[in-house]
């Protein structure tokens, strides 16, 4: 039972939330860079959060709003943990490509071979000592591809 409401913009809000969610979903499924995949997951969360806010306004109470506060908090914690994990994974294999992690597959299956791998970063020269001016040398731009 939906209470009468004087809020006409509900469907627009829901539409935006759904678009956000779907963009996030497509991005999550398509991206192989772990950080970008994670960002897409965050996008899906925000789409859902928008739904909460819209319904909260529509129903005229604060339940949805307060829920969104929790959601943001949790998303922040999640981001911290995810970044830490991604860092560890990166240090382990030297790449952010998620497809190098296939160890959960069945033993009997062959690993899916990446026909189009992300190029590995060129071996870096050791960091030179900082000059007295406190400015580091120019770093090459990190490569990433969709």
């Amino acid at each position, binding site marked *: 039972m939906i209470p009468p409401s004087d809020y006409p913009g509900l469907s627009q809000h829901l539409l935006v939330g759904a678009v956000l969610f779907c963009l996030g*979903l497509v991005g*999550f*499924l*398509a991206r*192989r860079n772990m950080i970008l*995949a994670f960002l897409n997951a965050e996008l899906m969360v925000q789409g859902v959060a928008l739904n909460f806010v819209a319904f909260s306004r529509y129903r005229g109470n604060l339940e949805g709003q307060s829920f969104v506060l929790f959601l943001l908090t949790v998303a922040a914690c999640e981001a911290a943990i995810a970044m830490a994990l991604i860092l560890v994974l990166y240090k382990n294999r030297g790449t952010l490509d*998620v*497809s190098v*992690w*296939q*160890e*959960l*597959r*069945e033993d*009997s*299956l062959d*690993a*899916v071979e990446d026909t189009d791998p992300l190029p590995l970063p060129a071996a870096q020269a050791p960091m030179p000592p900082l000059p007295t001016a406190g400015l580091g040398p120019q770093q090459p731009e990190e490569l990433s591809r969709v």
Partner: protein
Amino acid sequence: MFELSTETLWLLLPLIPGLPLMAAALVAIFGHRLGERSHLPVLLAVAGSAIFGFLALMHVRGMGAHQAPNAVFNYANWFEAGNLRVDWELRLDSLSAMMAAMVSFISLWIVLFSAGYMHGDPSYPRYFAAVGLFVGAMNILVLANNLPLLFLGWEGVGVCSYLLIGFWFAKPEAAKAARKAFLVTRLGDVALLAGMILLYRAGDPVGLSYDTIFSHHYDATTLYWALVCLGIGAFGKSAQFPLHVWLPDAMEGPTPVSALIHAATMVTAGVYLLARMLPPLAGHAVTAAQLESIGAFQDLVLVSGGVTALLAALIALGQTDLKRILAYSTLSQLGYMFMALGAGTTKGNVECHSLASAAAAAAVFHLFTHAFFKALLFLSAGSVMHAMGNVLDLRRIGGLRKLLPITHICFLVGALALAGLPPFSGFFSKDGILEVLEQGAHSGGSRDGLQHAMLWLGLITAGLTGLYTMRAYLLTFWGKERIPEEAGHHAHESPVVMTIPLSVLAVPAAFIGLALGPTHLFGHFIQASPGWHAAETHAFAWKLAAVGLGAAAAGIAVALALGDRRPSRKPNGLAETARSGFFIDDVYTAFFAKPLEQFGRLLNFLDRELVDKLFELFARIPGWLGESLRPLQNGLLQYYALAMALGLVVLIAMFTLAR
């Protein structure tokens, strides 16, 4: 007069089977610690049983003909199923007291003998545990007051028989003989169970106590078939034709076991069962149809007993192994007992009861004397075996009378008793059997002809018995001294622990027949059992006794004439036929064992090729399913995410469409 109070009896009676059972448990549990002393608990317990059995016997004797018809001691309920109630109840009457005292007494001396015979065997405790269990089970069998409790003892002695025949189970023949004995007696046991079920279903369903059975009027057909089933059980246990094939092979067990189980006690359980059932049933039968039923059953017993007696005596002639000769003579003597049980008439209620009681008493008397002299013979054979390094082949041993003087005398006493020469015990009991057969043959009923034929058969068997017994004796103890090389330094008289039992058993084997037979003490005592017709004193049948003695003497004379002529090693058609036991074993192998084996192979083939394959097919289905789904589990993050997304789509679709 010697009498015990009811309370004393109440306490004393369960100890007769209880003491050996407790000793058996003790030895079974602590055998590894008792070691060489394992025989002590069993020996003491069996001695206690023997004393208590003797006290009970004296008590019953003191009561004389005024035995309470229900001298039954009920201890507890065993089980109840529907309206069937079975109690732990023991019965004290002439028959059970005699059997219990006899079993315990003979067991005592055989246990003592075993202590010497089995000395040094690595499984010494196991042997005595099994013997203790046997004595307990046998006493339960004879003291039981209902058929299920009897069946408990019946199966108990069967198990012990199996355990002890296969005592040296590493020997393939021993293991095979044990299996054969177990399976053949099992056939009889199934029939016994069927008989119990028939009696239970036909009777007022209140129980299977003897008194209930004896006081119920069974319909003639039921009575006949129930008796036939019980009879087949008795044939199996007492190794009567056609279920006799297990007993000769049972000689693979240690010799004291052959003496105890396969000569003196267990194999007489069938005789005991029929002697327990027949006289009261005959006394209670009133209609002509019922008498006919009992008569028809007795014909069966008569024929089976007669065939066994003659057949076994003939086979014994062809044997060259002393122990196997004794085994076949046991078969033959058991055949005698069954012939006696089969004697009777259908002329009238009183005649039928009187003759059935006299016949059963004669059978039990032969059982009683046979137990002594056959145990003596087997123990003597054991003593010979001990000295000769386990060789009993009459072609390889001989002339041992100087070497084994005590064994020689004891064997002679047993042999004369078995051959049936007066004043040795076998003469009187065998004469009693011939006498009841003669009475039956002249009773004027419809069964005279058969009993007449069986009387002649019994006389022929008596002659053959004299022949093979004397021949075994002469070949073992006379002639040129032959000692097989296996004997080694053992070729001397057995130790005192073995010769004492021999000497003790020789006394009753020699004289108990004379003491109890012509004086009618035994007959009067046994026939005072409740439900039996009291014995009538009659003059000693000199004529028949003389004919029987003549037959035995003729046999002995032939044996003496043959002298030291050993069986030749050359194959000889007739001798070969007798040695093989008339090929009955081969017939069973060809007609039962082989087809069953083939059938078993067929079933095995079907099981492995059809049933197993079918189940393997079902078992593979989940495997195949997993195989086909396995590629989905490829470890790539996006695939899992895609599966979740698709799952979400399915869920939403379901909710939407279900609306």
